[in-house]
């Protein structure tokens, strides 16, 4: 039993940190968030080059075949710099294809996704914004060899830059996972501007969009189970990103508390400030423990994996928000300004809190598990 990154993972972490610090400074984040898509071709290229886009995808299909702990390692570093754009969508879409696709489909998508040539996202949420796959209501119709879909999906991240949108639809009792080309006729993507401008959300409308049934992912397996698994992968990635955000906020607040003086002393010598910082550390480290465990458990298919993911997300959702709140409070007025980078993390924490289900949602999942209901 060893609950720590191994040497390779630590090296990977350090080089990733160094690279992102250089390539994605706050000015770049700010520039990108002012754009329509928050997506940066150069950074995307960098991520492809580094192998990050295919990090956990199978080696047979252009990936590096790494585990989720490695993914968590880079996601944490991305969170630390508040990296904008569609990395998380790429992970979600990649995991979905890897879990649900047959070998023809994997061949068709994964290599291009790993090389950065094909950008994917997943359209899951509808009007109720419910992350439970069983809540999907958008029904697909069968027309000859085709599935035909009409209706809309909401809160779809990075849909504007995606080449392919994997649309989750209801096919009777089952779900169907339809790869829809973003530029296909009948697909309309509209921005849903929201609080976190570093990860853009969209409404995606489908009007009589036909997809050959043979193109649907997972049709010969259990698409819902594959989707749940892909959601778990993306959720852990998000948790790791949140941990990175917490770490930045913690370090920044501690640094500020050491240098800012009031009443003739560094404010970090006041108990009220000290205690805020101590709580931030506790929240951050506990989030990290929960996230690393979930990443490991998913990788080895531990029976506790589903619970571990919900535990991590429930805890991180509350913790990132609380760390940001404390971070702002420690800073006082300056921490509340647009110019100070803390605001980027406050907004990211808020968006991350609900992405893939908020703490309440995941506590309910945990309750079902501890009460033996599933």
């Amino acid at each position, binding site marked *: 039993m060893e609950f720590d990154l191994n040497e390779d993972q630590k090296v990977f972490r350090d080089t990733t940190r160094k690279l992102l610090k250089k390539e994605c400074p706050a000015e770049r984040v700010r520039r990108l968030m002012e754009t329509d898509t928050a997506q940066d071709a150069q950074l995307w290229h960098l991520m492809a080059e580094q192998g990050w886009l295919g990090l956990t995808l199978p080696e047979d299909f252009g990936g590096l075949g790494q585990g989720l702990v490695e993914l968590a390692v880079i996601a944490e570093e991305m969170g630390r710099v508040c990296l904008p754009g569609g990395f998380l969508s790429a992970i979600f879409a990649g995991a979905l294809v890897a879990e649900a696709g047959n070998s023809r489909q994997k061949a068709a998508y994964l290599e291009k996704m790993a090389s950065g040539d094909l950008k994917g996202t997943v359209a899951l*949420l509808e*009007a*109720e*914004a*419910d992350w439970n796959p069983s*809540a999907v209501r958008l029904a697909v119709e069968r027309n000859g060899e085709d599935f035909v879909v009409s209706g809309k999906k*909401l*809160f779809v991240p990075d849909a504007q830059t995606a080449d392919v949108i994997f649309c989750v639809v209801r096919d009777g009792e089952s779900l169907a996972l339809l790869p829809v080309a973003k530029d296909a006729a009948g697909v309309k993507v509209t921005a*849903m*501007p*929201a*609080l*976190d401008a570093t990860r853009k959300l969209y409404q995606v409308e489908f009007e009589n969009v036909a997809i050959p049934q043979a193109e649907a992912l997972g049709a010969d397996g259990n698409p819902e189970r594959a989707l749940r698994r892909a959601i778990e992968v993306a959720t852990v990635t998000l948790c790791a990103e949140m941990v990175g955000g917490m770490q930045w906020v913690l370090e920044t607040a501690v640094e500020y508390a050491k240098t800012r*003086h*009031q*009443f*003739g*002393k560094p404010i970090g010598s*006041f108990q*009220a*400030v000290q205690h805020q910082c101590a709580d931030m550390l506790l929240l951050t480290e506990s989030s990290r423990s929960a996230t690393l465990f979930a990443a490991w458990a998913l990788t080895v298919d531990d029976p506790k994996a589903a619970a571990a993911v919900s535990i991590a997300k429930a805890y991180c959702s509350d913790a990132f*928000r609380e760390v940001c*709140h404390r971070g*702002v*409070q420690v800073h*006082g*007025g*300056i*921490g*509340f*300004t*647009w*110019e100070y980078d*803390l*605001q980027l993390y*406050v*907004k990211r924490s*808020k*968006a991350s*809190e*609900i992405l893939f289900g*908020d703490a*309440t949602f995941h506590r309910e999942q945990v309750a079902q598990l501890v009460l033996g209901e599933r």
Partner: protein
Amino acid sequence: MDLNLTPAEQQFRDEFRSWLAANLPAPEERPKGTRTELGNVTFLKNWQKTLYAGGWAGISWPKEYGGRGATLVEQAIFQEELAHANAPELIGTIGLSLVGPTIIAMGTEAQKQRYLAPILSGEEIWCQGFSEPNAGSDLASLATKAVRDGDDFVISGQKTWTSFAQMADWCLLLVRTDQEAAKHKGITCLLVDMHLPGIQVRPLRMMSGDSAFNEVFFTEVRVPAAQVLGKVNQGWTTAITALMNERANLGSGLQVIFRRNLDALIERSKTVQRNGKPVCEDPLVRQKLAQAQIELEILGLNTMRALTSLAKTGIPGPEGSISKLFWSEMNQKTQQAAQEILGAYGQLSEFDNGIWAYGYLRSRGNTIEAGTSEIQRNIIAERVLGLPKSY
């Protein structure tokens, strides 16, 4: 103990209610957005003028200074009725609730004659130049200096977190006039014309995207010595009076906004759906809505109690810190509850005009502005409970 309005208070309320019904601009004529958006300034100044003309400005100010000479309870009724009528917020709030009462308490007769009436009529807007980049919680360490030169003071330095500076005609400014004295002893309070040369206002954008505050830069600004409010080097007393007035008044004005906000949330909870039902049927949501309601009601009750006490003693005291602490933390909890209740919709810029995302972000400043929660707790501990000083 009688929370019913007295006949006089009822009459006051009825009178103002009728007056509002007759004089309030129709909803479609009113500006959208916040008070600090410049496009709204003319409208809001006119609205203050209308109030003044109707005899509804400076409700609790003495009649001799153009106020209505009404009681503090009537002042609160005035606020409540504005809220019920969904009336625009008052743009001259710094002048009305902070500068005016301070000038009445500490000003010379000439100052009273010169400054009070234009505050009431909305002709002159005031701002308050207290905080500095290096003097936040530790306000007494302020560094903006004023050097005596003949009949003038020459001011240089920087203020920050100055609300309304972008439209203000005057500023209640704290400056250091004695570099040698102990830090609380060398401060003077000046009434400064914001149109003087050497004053530069730069909006301070907040994380919530708007610029309710400003930075104000003073470069050798000359102000006649007659503009001192109170005594030279005794401005700290003036500052404390002003801050207590600020805290005493902020709560009751904000209640209006909080009530509207919670009502909107309650209505929204009936339309946003989860699991095929409006979220207001979710027991967790119900608990959150109820807690918000409970705290808002108690804020109102605490304010009424404080008002009764203030009416007897005449001077706002450190109890204002309890109110400040209460409303700031209440609003943060309620805004967070709104986020949890509305879920993904609460973060959208185009859902309810983005008020939920804005409200959440803006609320994070509540426990910092007008004295951080840490400072308020220190004040309560030391000045109300009599605990020894922490530093």
